[in-house]
């Protein structure tokens, strides 16, 4: 049903943000919030990539003295912490925040203000780490800071505290985003979108959100214990006082391993959407893909010890974790099979987003297979902490998550901006990034097998590592050039790109029903769904009416069958999420320096939350209660 102009005007009036800076600070529009998340994460990806290039330059010749050991150690710590905590996880959440309401045919997230709060707190974590870097208190112990090296005796000063508190920021932000995404997917699906008719993308986002909710508490606990050890001498990790250094590793990896899948599973959602659209047929094996995602999500919690095979744990346990780690190849392999089967039985259209899927399969599978090698408790003793692992983790994270992300960026770019990115420049960027990446990282497998440990700022001559290191450096430089082409293409297309219309790729899911760029209210009417690919069904999209347009309202449906149950007020713009995030930021930063920051800092947080949740007089604003019944 095409909305008339009066309806559009009314929706605009109800859902618009205040103009100017105030609107910028108070908005709860999921698309604006997600755009901020994504731009911030891409900027950080560029900065952390520059650090990587700097390190590759240092390692291109043996005995190089260009970087001091301290600078090199800071560089890889900042690179890893930024990429894992501030880029990979948040950017996947951001894609969910953007796309989940659109794919559900709804007007906003379940908790709009929580979405805004999540971004502001994430920004607090970003600024904590990078302003600390500008002030030369950069963490310098890697992206997992094992005690006792990170404890009070061996890391005086505040570098380790900055790292630990940056994690607290990003984890609170991630929890807020995940709760929001999970609630939105479970309770705000359009009528007809039963769990069985839910696109794989939404399953991926649901499972990774639940994994985030289950795993993040472990890392917040462990970094808080580390801070307590450092600040108030709790001795959790001090063996001389009865503590145990391995406790840290167990808790860290209980989060750290699921984290890898929290990054990878959303990427499988992107792949499923893109492969379906560009194979021009409904995804083959929908149930297999959904079950595979669930299997990966469950198994991910049972194999953290494979990061610890070299610490000397009991062997029976190691055997269990070997089998569990390898078992994850079964669901992952079936996913790959389903995607290839979809291409095989469809009519593949090799536009840029689809090229990224080919890059993903051919690169990620290498990372998956090197993962099978390192999953062996025995063989891992030769592979762990070498450049083989550096190669492996980049193949899974870049090949398995970033390539799908780049494809997703090209795929949904017209939805966000109303314009298409250039195909020619997009293909050039694809060739440079995928080619440069493989040239840069494949030799690292050999470096590891030739004995080069990771995290070394230099290496002696005569080890036979020189040439491969130079090749790796050249590959990294080519990748960075490709990245610049990609970003330039995105920027130029923003102003010069060809107008796309609402559905340039003839996509199958609901986000392609809304105009591009998307209005603040997303959908004029709530769509009704009767298949997995509603945009490919015969006839126009069916809709229901009944959700208010003169106040912010959304439809809430049942968890399993998506039967409408009630209309729900959707929170409007507010400054309180920002104020609350500032209060939390003040407490987190203060707690680096004194434990008193926690009780004292709780007061402004309480005040801000009181403002946030101050009851609104719903009746006076929205008319007689009977209208809402």
């Amino acid at each position, binding site marked *: 049903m095409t909305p008339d102009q009066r309806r559009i005007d009314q929706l605009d009036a109800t859902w618009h943000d205040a103009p100017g800076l105030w609107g910028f600070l108070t908005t709860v529009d999921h698309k604006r919030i997600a755009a901020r998340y994504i731009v911030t994460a891409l900027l950080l990806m560029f900065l952390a990539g520059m650090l990587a290039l700097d390190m590759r330059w240092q390692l291109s010749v043996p005995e190089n003295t260009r970087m001091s050991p301290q600078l090199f150690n800071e560089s890889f710590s900042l690179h890893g912490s930024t990429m894992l905590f501030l880029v990979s996880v948040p950017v996947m959440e951001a894609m969910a925040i953007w796309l989940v309401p659109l794919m559900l045919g709804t007007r906003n997230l379940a908790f709009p203000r929580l979405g805004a709060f999540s971004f502001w707190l994430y920004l607090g974590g970003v600024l904590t780490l990078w302003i600390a870097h500008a002030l030369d208190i950069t963490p310098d112990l890697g992206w997992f800071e094992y005690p006792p090296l990170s404890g009070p005796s061996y890391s005086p000063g505040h570098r380790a505290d900055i790292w630990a508190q940056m994690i607290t920021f990003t984890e609170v932000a991630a929890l807020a985003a995940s709760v929001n995404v999970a609630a939105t997917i479970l309770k705000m699906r359009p009528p007809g979108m039963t769990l069985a008719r839910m696109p794989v993308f939404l399953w991926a986002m649901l499972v990774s959100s639940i994994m985030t909710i289950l795993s993040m508490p472990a890392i917040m606990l462990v970094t808080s214990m580390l801070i307590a050890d450092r600040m108030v001498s709790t001795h959790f990790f001090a063996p001389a006082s009865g503590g145990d250094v391995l406790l840290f590793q167990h808790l860290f990896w209980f989060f750290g391993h699921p984290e890898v899948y929290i990054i990878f599973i959303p990427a499988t959602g992107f792949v499923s959407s893109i492969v379906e659209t560009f194979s021009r*047929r409904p995804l083959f094996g929908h149930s297999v893909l959904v079950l595979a995602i669930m299997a990966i999500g469950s198994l991910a919690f049972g194999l953290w010890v494979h990061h610890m095979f070299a610490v000397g744990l009991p062997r029976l346990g190691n055997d269990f974790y070997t089998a569990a780690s390898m078992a994850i190849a*079964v669901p992952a392999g079936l996913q790959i099979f389903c995607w*290839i089967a979809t291409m095989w039985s469809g009519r593949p259209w090799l536009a840029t987003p689809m090229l990224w899927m080919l890059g993903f399969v051919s690169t990620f599978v290498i990372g998956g297979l090197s993962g099978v090698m390192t999953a062996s408790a025995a063989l891992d003793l*030769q592979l762990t902490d070498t450049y083989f692992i550096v190669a492996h983790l980049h193949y899974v994270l870049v090949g398995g998550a970033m390539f799908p992300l780049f494809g997703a960026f090209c795929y949904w770019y017209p939805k966000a901006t109303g314009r298409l990115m250039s195909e020619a420049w997009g293909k050039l960027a694809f060739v440079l990034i995928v080619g440069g990446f493989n040239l840069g990282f494949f030799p690292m497998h*050999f470096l590891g097998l030739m004995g080069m440990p990771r995290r070394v700022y230099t290496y*002696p001559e005569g080890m036979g590592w020189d040439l491969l290191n130079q090749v790796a450096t050249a590959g990294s430089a080519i990748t960075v050039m490709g990245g610049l082409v990609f970003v330039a293409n995105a920027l130029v297309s923003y102003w010069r790109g060809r107008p796309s219309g609402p559905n340039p790729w003839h996509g199958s899911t609901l986000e392609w029903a809304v105009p591009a760029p998307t209005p603040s209210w997303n959908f004029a009417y709530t769509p009704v769904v009767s298949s997995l690919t509603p945009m490919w069904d015969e006839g126009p999209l069916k809709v229901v009416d009944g959700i208010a347009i003169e106040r912010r309202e959304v439809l809430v449906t049942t968890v399993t069958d998506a039967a409408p149950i009630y209309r729900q007020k959707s929170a409007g713009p507010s400054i309180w999420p920002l104020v609350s995030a500032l209060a939390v930021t003040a407490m987190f930063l203060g707690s680096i320096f004194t434990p008193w920051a926690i009780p004292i800092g709780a007061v402004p947080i309480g005040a801000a939350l009181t403002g946030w949740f101050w009851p609104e007089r719903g009746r006076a604003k929205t008319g007689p209660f009977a209208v809402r019944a």
Partner: protein
Amino acid sequence: MNSRSMALLGMVLLAGCSGVQSPLVPSGDQAGALHNLFWLMVVVCGGIYLLVIAGLAWGLMRVRRQSATTSDHTASDKRLDKGVWVAAAVIVAGLTVLIVGSFLADRALFATRGQSAMMVRVTGYQWWWRIEYRDPAGNRWIETANELHLPAGRTTRVQLGSADVIHSFWVPNVAGKLDLIPGRRNQLDLTPRREGWFRGQCAEFCGTQHAHMAFDVKVESPATFDAWLAGQGRNATTPAASERGQGVFAQNCAACHGIRGTLAYGRAGPDLTHIASRRSIAAGTLPMSRGGLQGWIAQPQALKPGTAMPTIPLSAADANAVAQYLAGLK
């Protein structure tokens, strides 16, 4: 394909590499078991990778007859449904081979655990290795640093501990790595077979100079080893015409370094009783030479920034005398 040409290039390079610190040049039982497992993995995983790429290529190049988006896929999907089971079966079969291979290799690593073996204690420090041998003749430990000697054909049991942070002991030609963890004691059995010099290196990030925490490993015939150990067990013999050097050492260095047979009892740094018999200085930072010793004494912070060894202001003549003294401690 990019990665495959890289693989070929890699093979060529491996043939020419030095191989003193490489899992691909196994020189002991444990490394040999892992080397076999590695190639089993490469074959199985490489085969699976080729299947995936072939499937992808076939999927893209196949001639298609379907005409529209909404065309009926039920016929081809029925065939593909069977494919899901085939794919699952192939993966499970491959993984079964690898898991069994992994368990067998794991058993091989611990095959010597029940037997008696020579005990060596290795303790990690930021950033060097204290190495202590059980004296076969008596109840004491013979101490040295940064150089491990192993008898070929016999099993040596290394007890791993740490004095400060977590380190990891790795001699890839002989065995896989095992961490040195404060508050814990790990044991690693080494059964080297091929004689020669190898290199080990710390594999767990341990602070500023993690990159310069290596050690030399000499695998030698049991007779040579016994002679070496007997030599290491003897006190230092003060070299001729080095009284001045010994005096300067006693005043400036003995608080941290020990030299058995003299009044230098320090334990904070490496034992130097037979330092000149070793192959390198400062945990693999410099090759052993008289000039290297003198340079290290003069400028430790320039050669290994962050090392616990302080720069001690010595006159040129004193530094020369200390270097001469140490260079004589064979």
